[in-house]
């Protein structure tokens, strides 16, 4: 790792933002290069774990015990229940774009069913020539695809619609998004086998959970890029993500990607299920509401620094975060250290994938004074992540779904960050 030369440390935007070439040329963490102690002429030393063979192999891996704070928290469920709520991805402790499966967020409506795959069937029926059923073993024999894509609950970031800033962190505010490699069977293949009738326009998907959770999905999306997912990050889906099979709708609000998929009924209209009318609909201040807000809007959040991750003192830091859009790839991300007065373009990691998390990074020379960090993303359609004021315009009180306004973190002289509105 080479040392940055002094020209790299000239700010390109207010309050210490440095040019992104600091990362592009020297690699990550150049500004805080690891110190490797080496006393010339001293006896070689061994830490305790180098003085005896380590533990043996195991059939399944686990994170270091020193990382046991990296968990899905906070967890919350409806009163009197343990399975009607959410657990959140700890974005502030993660890097890259893949969410480890054990840390993928959860939103369940009636707990996680324990499904014996030999006794589970997917039934395709309704406006088809031949109702058919498939089990997981059979689906594994079909042509499959895999893609690295995000899944986001439409309530994610909704805490920012509160009239006053909540005392939250990346997980509690934005932790209802995760990204995985999803593998499975293109749903169009199965519908074709069943024989679509011309009057079919929607598909009502329902799960094998205790709520038989159901959503109506336009047939157009089903034929475009929907899959029956069997795999997540290379292994079979976990029970908390729909084992043995789930619907996966790239870029669309997570609730519609029905887990534990049990039935797909082709219909001529939406069923107007509870979770597409009473919930997940967007109420405006004028009393009118919108149904079927499907693609998730372009959004980004700085994950480091962020609340809970205090800066050690003045110096050069990496600002890092994730950006995503339900309508395609991220085109660019800008960051600000002065509350949005000036902006610097962030570097994007190599993997800029459609409907996936994109990791961005910027270099920042913190002078120890107050700073307000913001990020804003632009997607390939040209859509720009809105300010909070813009994202709030026209919303009814407590209308919190599909919020994609910018997140501001205020850094105080002690190096701590908190959620603020600008």
């Amino acid at each position, binding site marked *: 790792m080479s040392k940055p030369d002094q020209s790299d440390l000239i700010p390109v935007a207010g309050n210490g933002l440095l040019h992104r070439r600091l990362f592009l040329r020297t690699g990550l963490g150049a500004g805080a290069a690891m110190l490797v102690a080496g006393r010339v002429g001293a006896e070689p030393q061994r830490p305790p774990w180098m003085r005896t063979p380590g533990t043996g192999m195991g059939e399944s891996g686990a994170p270091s015990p020193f990382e046991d704070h990296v968990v899905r928290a906070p967890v919350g469920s409806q009163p009197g229940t343990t399975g009607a709520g959410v657990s959140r991805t700890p974005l502030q402790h993660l890097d890259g774009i893949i969410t480890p499966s054990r840390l993928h967020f959860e939103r369940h*409506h009636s707990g996680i069913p324990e499904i014996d795959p030999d006794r589970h069937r997917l*039934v395709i029926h309704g406006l088809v020539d031949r109702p058919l059923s498939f089990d997981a073993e059979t689906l594994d024999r079909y042509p499959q695809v895999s893609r690295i894509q995000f899944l986001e609950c439409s309530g994610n970031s909704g805490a920012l619609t509160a009239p006053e800033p909540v005392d939250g962190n990346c997980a509690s505010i934005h932790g209802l998004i995760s990204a995985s490699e999803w593998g499975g069977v293109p749903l169009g293949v199965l519908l074709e086998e069943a024989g679509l009738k011309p009057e079919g326009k929607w598909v009502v998907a329902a799960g094998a959970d205790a709520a038989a959770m159901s959503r109506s999905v336009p047939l157009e999306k089903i034929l475009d890029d929907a899959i029956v997912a069997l795999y997540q990050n290379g292994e079979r889906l976990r029970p908390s993500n729909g084992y043995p099979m789930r619907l996966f709708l790239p870029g669309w609000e997570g609730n519609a990607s029905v887990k534990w998929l049990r039935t797909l009924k082709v219909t001529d209209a939406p069923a107007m299920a509870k979770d597409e009318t009473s919930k997940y609909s967007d109420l405006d201040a004028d009393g009118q509401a919108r149904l079927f807000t499907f693609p998730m809007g372009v959004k980004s959040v700085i994950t480091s620094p962020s609340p809970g991750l205090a800066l050690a003192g003045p110096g050069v830091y990496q600002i890092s975060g994730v950006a995503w859009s339900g309508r395609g790839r991220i085109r660019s991300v800008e960051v600000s250290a002065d509350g949005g007065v000036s902006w610097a373009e962030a570097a994007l990691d190599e993997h800029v994938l459609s409907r996936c998390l994109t990791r961005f990074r910027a270099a920042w020379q913190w002078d120890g004074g107050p700073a307000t960090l913001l990020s804003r993303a632009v997607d390939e359609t040209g859509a720009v992540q809105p300010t909070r004021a813009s994202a709030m315009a026209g919303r009814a009180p407590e209308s919190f779904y599909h919020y994609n306004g910018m997140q501001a973190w205020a850094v105080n002289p002690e190096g701590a960050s908190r959620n603020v509105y600008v």
Partner: protein
Amino acid sequence: MFMYKRWMAPSLMVAALMMAAFGQAQAAESPGLGVPLSDSEVAAVDLVVMPDGRGLPAGSGDAHQGLDVYQRECRICHGDGGQGGPNDRLAGGIGSLATAQPVKTIGSYWPYATTVFDYVRRAMPYHLPGSLSTDEVYAVTAYLLAENGIIERDRVLDAETLPAVQMPNSGGFSWAWPED
């Protein structure tokens, strides 16, 4: 390998499916391993109720019968008369949506009465879903609509009368899909 490559091309897949949608399905496109189902096998897993009433089963109930069901199965979470408890308020709030304190309930917000039946039959009561008889689901649906002042307490709901119920906020929604 031939088939794998074929399915890697989305445009080809969509083209093939659009043909299928117009009744020109090519039998060779799929391994064809789906197991055909009889009508009764489909009926055993089909819970979909449409806003126009398609999918509603035979049976009936009214608000008087529904009160008993509600008190026994629902009140502990949703409060007396659906006014809310530990969990969602189900009644009242009609006319509040455009105010500074919108109250979203079945009566004030939900656009279709059939959704109540569909959801209760699927998911309620929370700790014992599927435990209510069809008549009980109709009855508790009638009770909730009556508590909201939408139907008379003597009104018997069944597959014919439930979809005919006009909800106060039925005109309160537009569709965000398809996008412009």
